[in-house]
């Protein structure tokens, strides 16, 4: 690719265009491969599509741009501390609705940091919750008959299912 390129344009699965800086795109292996691809040379107009919807892609790019400086240069302890706080805040924003989209996107884009963060957030939402609360949070439909449920309870003595 041409060294003059500082940001690239990508399309979301909804067809919207997004800009992402080269250093941020490097956080994702597939994006990094794309960077080396000819389509980012100056004389090419083709815009690659990323199979992630717009709402999710906005968040993913926000994450990449925030983490890029540290990932590329290595940073001090205080920066790491600050970044950890930022991650917690990032996941707090009404992200609950798109948490699983972010998880899938991070998996698809091979972004280990974001993937672990999303998994951790999902697990934290489950922690200490009763079965019915977890169903409510993740909108899981209980499709067991009451007999099946009873059988499961017998299989797992000492475990609370309420």
């Amino acid at each position, binding site marked *: 690719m041409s060294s003059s390129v500082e940001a690239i344009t990508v399309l979301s699965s909804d067809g919207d265009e997004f800009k992402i800086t080269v250093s941020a795109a490097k956080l994702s292996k597939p994006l990094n491969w794309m960077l080396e691809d000819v389509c980012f040379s100056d004389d090419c107009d083709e815009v690659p599509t990323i199979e992630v919807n717009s709402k999710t892609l906005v968040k993913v790019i926000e994450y990449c741009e925030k983490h890029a400086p540290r990932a590329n240069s290595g940073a001090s*302890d205080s920066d*790491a*501390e600050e970044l950890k706080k930022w991650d917690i805040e990032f996941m707090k924003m009404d992200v609950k*609705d798109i*948490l*699983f989209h972010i*998880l*899938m996107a991070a*998996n698809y884009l091979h972004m280990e940091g974001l*993937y672990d963060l999303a*998994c*951790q957030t*999902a*697990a*934290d939402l*489950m*922690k200490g919750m009763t*079965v019915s609360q*977890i*169903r409510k949070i*993740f*909108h*899981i*439909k*209980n*499709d*067991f008959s009451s007999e099946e*449920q009873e059988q*499961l*309870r017998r*299989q*797992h*003595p*000492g*475990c*609370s*299912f309420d």
Partner: protein
Amino acid sequence: MRDRISHIPDELLLHILSSKSLQTKDVVATSVLSKRWRSLWHSIPKLEFLDQRFDRYESFLQFVDATLNLVDPKSVKMFVLKCERIEEYYEVSLGKVDSWLNTVLKSKLEYLNLWFPNGYYFLIRVPLPSTIFKCRSIRILKLARVNVSDLSDVNLPSLKTLHLTNVEFPNPESLALLLSKCVRLEELLLLGLEFPDDEVTTLNIGKLHNLVIAFVPVELFPMEAISNVTFLCLHKHNVFGDYEFPAFYNLSHLEIYLGQNGWTSMFSCLPSFPKLETLIIRESGKGLDWLMETSPDVPPCISSHLKTFVLLGFSYSQSEFEIVRFIMMKATVLRSVIIWTGNYSSHEAERLNLLETLSSYPKCSQDCSIFVDVPSGSLYQNVYCKLVSHKDFSY
């Protein structure tokens, strides 16, 4: 509304279920969420059984039995067992522990952590099956208060981390044999080793070439064996003057108890650590022999490598003030001086007063910051975490 989680592949859900914030008890409970979840957890790689999460110890035993009955042993990579109440059904528990271990050792186990209490009515040292030491896939092995008797056939080619706390061995030779078979060992923590015959001799072992982190009793180890480490933490009762330190060319992190050592003997050892960057001294208040007038030559590691100087258990003694002044005056690349008084109830005014006194000392490194009783989980923790985190298990 759509089922938010239904489009997630099993593999990703298992990753969520393996998160550190969920224990096996929570994971098994997901089997009643819906039909899809019913047997999903059977492929979980992480099993973590802690009896304190159960009202009755008996239900805990039943739960582990039932879980191990259903789980697919091929997928288990991590097994953690912590039995705080093992005394309640000691004999029964011993049989169970044995059979549980034999179940999980059939899998490609990578992480094994067994923790037992010291015992209230009698001394607990849980005998372990020798199969543990033939598990070729184990990378991390942490054992507390167990008895290791049969070490005739050790085969641990993948082992990188070994932590042994209050572990009973038949004799020092068996420990030496164990260590000599761990050819890839990078991290070694030995705390409270026990041999029935009290006579302790130096272990007869060759150099542990791959060892990076060592927390070991110095009297048991030929120094040469561990001289490749970058991180060395010495035991409380180790007295410096008694040992010949060879040069530790890789060592950047040294953690010691000042205790009976005294400042002068500690300083005389420092030239053995030419690349020392972090020096952590516990019980700093106990060293009373430091005087500026008799200060030794400045070891080169202090003058040109030391970045972090930590005193834990600061007790406002004259020696401690003098040593901080000395270090700040001589260390050219010093970045942090971290002081812990351990006195959490002290007034903020007292803390600020100490900070002010230390800050008034002449500094040879302009980048140097001083921290007094900074909140836990920050600076000092970071130093340690950075060293060990890359070795942590990722589940």
